[in-house]
């Protein structure tokens, strides 16, 4: 059976992180560090989420002179709602997966 969109563990980890503070703007590098995703995995996910209208993007002024502007991201209202649904739907399977990998897990 085909997998539904935005249900991969990588996407869910991005959504989960963005949902922790849905009104804050997040940097790509920080998202990569916090989710453990490589840039080549993270950015296509962000791009797709933005295309689907789940993610809002904004260029910010550089904090230090000479640095380029940075791209920041946060969930849209629709994105936050959809992300909550996706995470709730995926919660049982994610829990099972976690238990299976934990020491002493089944």
């Amino acid at each position: 059976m085909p997998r539904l969109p935005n249900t991969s563990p990588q996407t869910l980890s991005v959504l989960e992180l963005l949902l922790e503070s849905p009104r804050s703007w997040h940097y790509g590098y920080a998202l990569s560090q916090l989710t453990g995703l490589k840039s080549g995995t993270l950015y296509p996910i962000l791009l797709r989420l933005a295309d689907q209208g789940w993610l809002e993007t904004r260029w910010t002024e550089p904090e230090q002179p000479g640095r380029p502007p940075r791209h920041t991201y946060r969930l849209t209202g629709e994105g936050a709602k959809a992300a909550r649904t996706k995470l709730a739907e995926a919660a049982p399977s994610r829990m099972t997966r976690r238990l299976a990998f934990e020491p002493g897990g089944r």
Partner: protein
Amino acid sequence: MPTHGFLGRLADALARQLLSWLHRRVEPGSREWLDALIAESDCADDGWQRLRWALGGVPLVWTINGRRRMNEPTRGPMRARIVRGVANIAGIASGFAVIIPATDLATYFFRCHLFFGNQPGGCQEHPFVFASIAIGGGVLGMIIALALRARFAAYWWAVVSGFNTVGSVWYLRSGIVDLPRYGATQSAMLMAATFGVVLAAIMRDAPWTETDHGPVHHVGDSAGAPASFLSRHRIAALLIAGTISFAMADALIRMRDRHLVADNVNHYALLGSAMFAAILAGLIGRHGSRLSAKGCSGTE
């Protein structure tokens, strides 16, 4: 440690070169996401981290360019397909147009024969010459294919060059002098198998979808738009294409006792399998596009 410092600076320089090269690979109107990744590369602590970050730009550029191609209006699809097909065939044939005469010339010059076996007077006694022809021909084929914008042929020759390089090094290290007998069959088999995998990887319909190959989403479609069966199973279909190519290459090699193809059987087999796989891949792509255009749902 000075060595670490030097390597770190080298990695940093490589990262910057890679990002600069990637930047040129994306047309100006589609650079937003790549610019975002490049801007974040300044946050890396050292050269190695920056290089790792920059390497992520490769799949991103692939994604961006793939998305752009999918959204381009199809102008004269049949004509475009013919032009692309001719360019690819020319790209593949051009490499062989160099390799086959060069091989014949070398056999004439060294007065040796492309035996299928370790026989006296065989060309296996000149491994460097024939390896150079094989690798050089592959690289030249790749350059010509790139000049012709024949993506399929370029990948084809890249794989040929890579395989021949590995094969030559293996051959020279092991001292196997019976390369033609084993090499012809094995190289065709491995080439076809590798080719299937490479083809599957490069011909994915929607590379910007998530890494778990979820349903295809064209930009502008609704988020939950279903994908066609072939869109979802494209990789499997192309692997099957590669497997059929392998069977074809193997069958051709088994015809080697026929004088017509005996000497250049390897080349004919590879050329034949490439052409066949190209046609098959084209048919799969066309069928998939038609299903998508019709809005076929993935509900099974």
